[in-house]
């Protein structure tokens, strides 16, 4: 699978070109048609003229990150988050800026200059800056400009079954989608890699309007908090127990017919599957399910620890199980359609 390559590629919301070009190369040999729309969503189509329900499988290409908002006289860069970035984890992290991937580090007031009360406080965006080694604004402006986007410079690593990397939300879903393009299905399947999910599910609505699917499945990376002091009631999902199906979050109530089909197929095929046990967050399913006259939609996701930070941790087996179950699901839809109520 291409998880390493996708994880290390850059694609902050609205600047998805690099990740899109990469995905296009990977899917091209497997599908009939590939195209991009005006927002930048990438569509890979297989079996367009086959009879049977039209299935849309979706994963978002974009990741959370930062954007340069000001270049100061001393050559330091100020920035704002793009999407929901946890400011507590930013200080001292290496980053790559703009198309040329200029290397920098997120800095803050040195520890020996902090007052005691400052040491116990979380540093906000106003207290942080990026240092690219420029001695003044003139030098900095040769390398970067206001509006450039910033990704975390995180290398992909393996720790046995566990994988470390940035942006598994939602490069895990993108990886799964690419794998699925290799399968043969008896119905038309639209693989859609969406843009700007992290800033408000913006790509998915127009994409779903264009595809007008009969049923949709969103593949995601979702939050897992199965660690440390967390009460078991707040784990949300657990690594290694299979992909997680969302019953409800802030954006969608997954279609009950699709959800029960996923659990039935998982049971019959011995694939581990868990429920997501919190209802926070939202995904492209929120927009897809409400497009046109409504689309039966569900969300399946790989559990990821430390989501929306420079390093995410996931279990490779969960991803493999997600691919397998999604494949069986589409085969079943092609045969039997969706039970609506």
């Amino acid at each position, binding site marked *: 699978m291409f998880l390493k390559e996708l994880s290390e590629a850059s694609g902050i919301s609205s600047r998805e070109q690099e990740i899109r070009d990469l995905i296009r190369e990977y899917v091209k040999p497997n599908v009939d048609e590939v195209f991009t729309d005006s927002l930048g969503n990438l569509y890979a189509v297989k079996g367009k003229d086959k009879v049977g329900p039209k299935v849309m499988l979706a994963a978002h290409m974009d990741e959370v990150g930062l954007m340069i908002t000001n270049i100061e006289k001393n050559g330091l860069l100020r920035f704002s988050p793009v999407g929901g970035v946890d400011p507590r984890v930013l200080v001292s992290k290496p980053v790559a800026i703009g198309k040329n991937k200029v290397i920098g580090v997120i800095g803050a007031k040195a520890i020996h200059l902090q007052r005691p009360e400052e040491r116990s406080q979380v540093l906000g965006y106003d207290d942080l800056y990026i240092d690219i080694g420029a001695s003044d604004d003139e030098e900095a402006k040769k390398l970067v400009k206001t509006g450039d986007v910033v990704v975390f410079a995180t290398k992909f690593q393996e720790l046995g079954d566990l994988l470390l990397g940035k942006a598994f939300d939602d490069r895990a879903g993108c990886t799964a989608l690419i794998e699925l393009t290799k399968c043969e299905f008896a119905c038309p399947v639209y693989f859609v890699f969406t843009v700007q999910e992290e800033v408000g599910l913006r790509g998915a609505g127009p994409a779903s309007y264009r595809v007008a699917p009969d049923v949709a499945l969103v593949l995601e990376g979702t939050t897992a908090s199965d660690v440390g002091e967390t009460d*078991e009631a707040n*784990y949300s999902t657990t690594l290694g127990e299979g992909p997680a199906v969302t*019953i*409800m979050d802030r954006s969608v109530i997954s279609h*009950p017919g699709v959800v029960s089909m996923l659990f039935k197929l998982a049971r019959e095929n011995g694939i581990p599957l868990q429920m997501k*046990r919190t209802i926070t967050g939202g995904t492209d399913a929120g927009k897809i399910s*409400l497009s046109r006259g*409504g689309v039966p939609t569900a969300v399946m996701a790989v559990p990821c620890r430390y989501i929306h930070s420079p390093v995410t941790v996931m279990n490779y087996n969960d991803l493999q199980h997600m691919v397998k179950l999604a494949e069986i699901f589409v085969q079943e839809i092609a045969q039997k359609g969706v039970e609506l*109520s």
Partner: protein
Amino acid sequence: MKELLEKLTQAYSPSGSERSIREIIKAELANYETKTDALGNLIVEKKGNGKKIMFSAHMDEIGIMVTHIDKEGFLRFDFIGGVGAYNLPGERVRFANGTLGVISVEKLDKIGDLKRESLYIDIGAESREEAEKLVKVGDSAAFISPFIDLGNRVVSKAMDNRSACTVLVQLMKELPETDNHIVAVFSVQEEVGLRGATTAAFSVAPDYGMAIDVTATGDTPKGLTMEVGLGKGAAIKVKDRSIMVHPYVKEKLIELAEKNNIPYQMEVLEFGGTDAGAIHLSRSGVPSGVLSIPCRYVHSRSEMIDYRDLEAVLKLAKAFAGADLQ
């Protein structure tokens, strides 16, 4: 109509699980061919060559969803729609399979510490294994509270929005002679973001939209500063957080109320929204309005309406359905 109101309020249907209320309404309107769409909206149509008017009343109610079952068999949960934590301890819930439970709260140092995370449901199970025979993570439950008749005033859970469902069912039973094309939508998932109305409005593509829903009142001790009160007639909405009612629709409703001697009051709501918020933004825009039934204690287990207001809303809905619209 009171029997119908009682039957509908007592039905189980939290957002996303509207099957049982949909079946009840379908049976009430057995004379019509009905359609259920992908999200579960029930769509009932009387064809005509005149203007297409989409009436919408949401079928769903607020509730809870189980997020965790602990070793001792207690359930933790999150809210479906706008549920307040502070008045939940002591309340009872029912699951789709009939399982009952009571809500209680961890020992708190002070009442101000009460939040959703400190609440749990006790279904009488003695272990996780026993609980899981009855309830799974991801299951929804609705609150239970009997219907009580206080004369003009009636009280139950889910007056929001079964009182409006009652009006819409009755409207379809007693439709006036008209050329207008009337579409009644019993919508789903209003309480989690006007979702059913969004897709129904796209499918129906109406000329006019009219949501029927409850609204808050300002007639209780040290309550909201708001003109609307129980027993003062149908409330014609001017605005809420989801819509500025189309001036033509608002004026038409006032004109029809005056002409037919239907008691009415104007409603300006500083919060909240209704299906009209979704309908009026569908496709390239739909002139839309809202007929509101004033309701005290909205989103509690004891929502109170005045039956005479319900009758006034029905009369005005009928008048609008039969109106000559531009």
